[in-house]
């Protein structure tokens, strides 16, 4: 051994020792190897049985079409979805709407989460209740509530007319704006709760330290709080995006058909046409798009990750 090594080995501090112990423990439990993933088995098996199996069935329906002889193999549904400009537009609209709703929810929801975690204290339970309450009434009644508010003779228009801010009533219902409002209304609680769950774990002393070192409130937020809570924003975005992607009742009831998304077309196939094959093909396209965007988001998080 060289002189430097011997010196180094004589300078083993408790921290080094602990790190060594932990490294050994980690290696044993295989954190860096796939063996550490053993606890995921129940979840994976459960989903294989009750998610993948139905999925495969769906996939089969979409390419094995019924025919007088018993069945034939065809990818015509997929071809139609990608070649017909109408369906391409619908796919695009679905993604665009989900992105817009997610962005709005993130911007609107973060301050509320911040308030909830930092300033609310005893009122936490009440805030959670207020966030959750809208989701507990049926969508039919929520739609009714929105029609009372946004209708031509509704509360909002009466107020705006009364204040002289507009001259003719706004036609908000039956258009894209009411769809966005309806979706944000229902999905922003998910965003708030996701962010709050992570923000709660952000050590306030880090913020205080930053301020002591001279950073203003805005800078502290931008460079300390926000990055540390990014996982919460990411979770919220994933959840909101997925939920928006799969919703159709809001488009149906609040949009009056002005916004057509893929789930709505799938619902139509069930309700009006009973063409399971086409519905399955659309479902698979939706699934593929969603999984792809999911994968992207997860990669993004990993790169920004709070791995220590």
């Amino acid at each position: 051994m060289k002189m430097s090594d011997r010196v180094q080995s004589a300078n083993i501090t408790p921290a080094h020792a602990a790190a060594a112990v932990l490294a050994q423990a980690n290696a044993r439990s295989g954190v860096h190897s796939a063996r550490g993933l053993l606890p995921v088995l129940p979840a994976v098996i459960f989903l294989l049985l009750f998610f993948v199996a139905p999925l495969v069935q769906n996939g089969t329906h979409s390419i094995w079409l019924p025919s007088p002889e018993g069945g034939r193999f065809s990818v015509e549904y997929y071809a139609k979805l990608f070649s017909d400009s109408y369906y391409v537009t619908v796919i695009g609209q679905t993604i665009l709407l989900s992105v817009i709703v997610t962005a709005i929810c993130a911007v609107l929801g973060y301050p509320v989460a911040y308030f909830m975690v930092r300033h609310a204290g005893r009122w936490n339970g009440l805030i959670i209740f207020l966030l959750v309450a809208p989701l507990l009434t049926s969508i039919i009644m929520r739609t009714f509530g929105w029609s009372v508010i946004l209708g031509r003779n509704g509360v909002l228009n009466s107020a705006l007319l009364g204040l002289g801010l507009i001259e003719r009533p706004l036609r908000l219902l039956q258009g894209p704006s009411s769809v966005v409002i309806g979706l944000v209304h229902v999905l922003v609680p998910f965003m708030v709760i996701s962010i709050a769950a992570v923000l709660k774990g952000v050590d306030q002393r880090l913020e205080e330290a930053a301020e002591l070192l001279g950073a203003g409130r805005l800078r502290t937020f931008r460079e300390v709080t926000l990055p540390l809570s990014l996982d919460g924003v990411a979770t919220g975005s994933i959840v909101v995006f997925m939920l928006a992607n799969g919703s159709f009742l809001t488009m149906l009831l609040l949009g009056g058909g002005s916004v057509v998304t893929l789930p709505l077309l799938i619902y139509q196939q069930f309700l009006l046409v009973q063409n399971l094959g086409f519905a399955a093909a659309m479902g698979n396209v939706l699934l593929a798009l969603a999984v792809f965007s999911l994968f992207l988001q997860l990669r993004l998080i990993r790169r920004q990750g709070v791995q220590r």
Partner: protein
Amino acid sequence: MRVHVLRRMERGVPRVLLLGYVLVFFVFLLAPIFFVVLVSLSDAAFVTFPVTDFSLRWYYRLLEYTPLLASLWFSLKLAAASAILAAVIGVPAALALARSTSRAADVVSTFLLAPLSIPMILLGVALLYNLSAIGLGLSFASLLIAHAVVSIPYVVRTVVAVYRSIGRDYEESAAILGASNRQIFTYITLPLIGSGIFSGMLFAILISLDNLSLSLFFGSAQTNTLPVAMLSYLQNQFDPAIAAIGTVQMAIAFVVLLVIERTVGLEYMSSPS
């Protein structure tokens, strides 16, 4: 001294603005609900606004038209059971995934989140045929499985997010101080990820209670969830009973959250001060 006051104002002004924003936010959130509760107290025989006469008769109607309350009770049981099942299956998976750096973890993560992205109608129909084929048919068990499938992603996702953002320090310190794995899990990890488990299960419960597309195909005389019962009810009348049952659901949520707060404490959701 003046600087001190200014500093205090500098802290105070943003806080007031934040409070103001939060109040406006909640007005937005609760506005339609306000009208729903109002309508439930209406005396009219169908949903109409403005409400001129008030009465509780639609709440009494819930007592005599039993399917709505029965399906509410069923929905609550189902929501709780599926959330718990999702937590039992999902939390260990989330913990393993959050700490793993192997390539497989990314794939498994995406896989466990995938059920979020399938349209629930398709999943419902496919599961109906699947579960009927293996003999589970239209039963509580089928619904439990179906709801758990769509709940697992929520629990996994929120727990992973919280666990990753906490960092290993606490657990490492405990390990150095001699705690066993089980002790670390019970006294350190679990409390720290409490907010993740809580929010994941909360999402699971909400999704389950409001779930129409998935539950639609499993409804039967014994297994009917509230959204399906409401949909069926609305085919032929549009009366305030629907508003009443929505208000009842909110009241139940209020009571449950109150109980949780008094017993376990909702400090899961706010910073330790």
